[in-house]
């Protein structure tokens, strides 16, 4: 097991090199540059634009710039943002906790909702509950994040306030001007986490339901029942555990999706996280920030996958890694 993890960690290196080369090339080959807007500023003459470009090191050939960037990275130096001139790593580390809190909460919420609903729907197949759950799941997958977010703000922030009900704040991680106590932060977290969890919940509910139905048909379930085990033991210990196994993989695969969803949710709810950082950096061609976030997010995703594989071995004794 230890060797397996080590091997996977070593495999990360060529993978990361590949990812960074591709991202670096794509980001730089797209038309436009960090000085694009200056080209339309008549106060800035062509020689100003050229000089600022050169000062930012953008005149060097692409491969030279990549090697400079990569060798700095190996020494732990992510460089400075081309826009704000702050260290990229600092910028990312400021945002990362916000995004992890948001996606983590969303993940937990999605699990808390989807497992019981999925299992119950499978046990009561074709009941009214099952049909509602299925309908809800289809709707949940179909509803776009941004729409749901705006509607929630409209209802819980705008209308609730008008009706004199306790309204939820429509953006930010905490009330500005205060440090933000726990209750305040929870209030700010509710809507974005819920929106982010929504589509995952829907997808997982369907998945768990079908997995569970599959498992319920298995021979070992029948033998367990025949042994005279109590129903709930059969359902939970033999059924649920087997049904949930593939969910571990699914969750690991869901991590990048959650990061993707965070881009939209963070924008709607003014949540200062990694998602918005990527979007802004990409639109401003802030190459160093783009590269920094890609590296960090890739590492997180790869680690999540590794964790899933390890978890798999822990949960399913039949699986052995050499």
């Amino acid at each position, binding site marked *: 097991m230890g060797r397996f993890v080590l091997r996977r960690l070593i495999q990360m290196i060529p993978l990361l090199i590949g990812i960074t080369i591709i991202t670096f090339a794509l980001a730089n080959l*797209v038309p436009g540059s960090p000085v694009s*807007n200056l080209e339309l*500023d008549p106060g*800035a*003459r062509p020689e100003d634009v050229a000089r600022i470009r050169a000062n930012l090191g953008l005149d060097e050939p692409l491969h030279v710039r990549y090697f400079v960037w990569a060798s700095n990275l190996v020494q732990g130096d992510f460089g400075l943002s081309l826009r*704000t*001139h702050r260290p990229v790593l600092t910028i990312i580390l400021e945002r990362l906790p916000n995004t992890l809190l948001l996606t983590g909460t969303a993940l937990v919420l999605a699990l808390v909702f989807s497992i019981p609903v999925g299992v119950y729907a499978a046990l009561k197949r074709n009941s009214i509950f099952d049909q509602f759950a299925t309908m809800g799941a289809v709707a949940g997958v179909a509803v776009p994040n941004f729409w749901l977010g705006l509607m929630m*703000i409209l209802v819980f922030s705008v209308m609730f306030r008008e009706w004199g009900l306790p309204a939820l704040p429509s*953006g930010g991680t905490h009330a500005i001007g205060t440090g933000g106590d726990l209750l305040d932060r929870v209030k700010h977290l509710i809507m974005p986490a819920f929106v982010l969890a929504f589509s995952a919940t829907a997808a997982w509910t369907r998945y768990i339901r079908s997995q569970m139905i599959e498992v319920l048909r298995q021979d070992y379930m029948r033998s367990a029942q025949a042994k005279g085990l109590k129903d709930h033991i059969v359902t939970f210990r033999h059924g649920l555990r087997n049904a949930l196994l593939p969910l571990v993989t699914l969750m690991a695969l869901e991590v990048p999706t959650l990061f993707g969803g965070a881009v939209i949710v963070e924008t709607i709810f003014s949540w200062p996280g990694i998602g918005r950082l990527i979007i802004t950096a990409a*639109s401003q061609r802030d190459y160093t920030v783009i590269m920094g976030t890609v590296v960090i997010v890739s590492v997180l995703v790869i680690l999540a996958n590794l964790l899933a594989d390890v978890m798999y071995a822990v949960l399913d004794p039949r699986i052995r890694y050499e």
Partner: protein
Amino acid sequence: MSENLSRFSRKIEDEVLGATMTRRSVIRKGAVLGLSMPVAASILAACEDDDPDDDVVDVDDDDDEPAVEPDDDDEEPVDDDDEPVAEEDVDSIFGDDYEPVGNVGGQIVYGSFSDAATMNPVLSQDTTSSGIINMFSRALVINHPLTTEPHPQLAESWDISDDGIEYTFNLREDVTWHDGEQLTAQDVVFTYETHMHEDTGSPRTAELTDRIDTVEAVDDYTVQFTLNFPASPFLQVNCIYRLIPEHILGDVEPADIAAHDYSIGTEGVTIGCGPFQFQEWVSDDHITLVKYPDYYEGEPNIDQWIMRVVPDQTVLAQQLGTGELDVGSIQESDFESLDAQEHVNVHMYDTFNFTFYAYQLDEERTTLFQEPEVRQALLYALDREALISAIRFGIGEVATGTMPVPSWAYNPEGIERHYDYDPDQARELLDSVGWVEGDDGIRERDGERFSFEIYTNAGNEIREQYVAVMQEQWREIGVECTPQTEEWSAFLDRITGTRDFEMFLVGFSWGVDPHQETMWHTDAQEGGFNMNRYSNPDVDDLLGQALATTDRDERTEIYTEMQNIILEDVPSAILDFPQGIVGVNTRVHNLFPTDVDYDTNSSNAHEWWVDE
């Protein structure tokens, strides 16, 4: 000035009432146009990166205030008579609109859809950064928010030598930096030297080095610029730059200034001499400024000012509604719902912005638009009233000439050719030059179909809708136009770099001065914004004349003549002049949005106050 003010407020009232009236007709007109109100589309677009700061191109202006082209001689080259009069009562820049202070304390939260990039005025290139910097720092001179004339700020008075070479500024002696240090002429010298240093990263280095020979501190409170040649825009363009403190940055290597604590925002280091001082910047979240009690124009009324980043414009409008934000610019589509809120005053003001489309005149790219008849025909075929009421919810004006509404050279009476919606005339004009309808309803000539592509930037819902409706309307006169959208930076590269387009549509912003050389002069084909290669010697001549003329009325006449030529040639068609819309909570007083100092006019920020 009070005359001006009443004109302004009347204007605002008219527009507010007008807009609500026309709102009902919007849907009707929209339906006529075959437009379904694209609600979902607008929500979707709102989620994309749709930052107006990034995608309104400032044609004439720098990051600070609207620019004045090298002809501006409205100023007598002698002592200006605009010096502040030492009066006992409050001498607000907003005159009669000033409301006596009813309360001291409290805070104002301002919403912005993009975050700042730097706190260093020398490096700032974007409107968000400059808007915040203007809250905590001050310049020698500002452009007056209402009259747009030069107005004293740190310089009490100035003197311009008769030959227009020497500018001498007398500084106020009561100005201190936020750490208590006295502001002196040396800081002015330092600021301009920093701007002019090659390694600093200022976008103004070339222009300033070109214009300025020397900048010297004559004594502690007198600073003298000697120019290389008379450059009349110098006062209103280059003397409005905000100052930086020498005692903080004097020892820093110019190349290191961008990453210095001062520039990235550090309490106690990032200091200015304005009414508010820097306290905190949590990137992509908020920036907090607190009042500077020793501000030279008097202690500010509010305790703190917070800029909050709200990247989604729809949410920004909703937060103005909920009171989470006090002040913020909104889009046309959010006007109605916000205006219905009793606790929000919605200010509308004329801007120097405009939407236009450009015909490619370079024969090597396309020969479609070589005849003026064709260019005129396409403009006649557009129902711009309907475009504005359907897409801008009636907030904006159909452009008559090329001059923006607030400009002193705005002279719609002098414009000869008016492009009122007239599809029949459009058809006649096209027939007259041999473009006749083919089998598929699209016009043809010598085997060539009248078909082209129009580019605009993706994510700007208004422009996307504009090109969609233009496609419909041109289709009706037998012209096929295919809209293409492209991400902003790539789009910029196309229109300014490769120039690979047949037509594009975008929004620009003129400077305060009406000298529109950068778009119409032949020399502006390279390095300017004459991106479609227009050239007319008559226009070049008139622009040259205007440069040498100091009298405003004469200049207005010259510009009117120039506009009449341009409206015959129609190298680019200016479609509309949109208006700025700013929501201000009724608890906020003395805050008057205009288009001169960003949207909120921080020149009188010390006078802002809020109800308890």
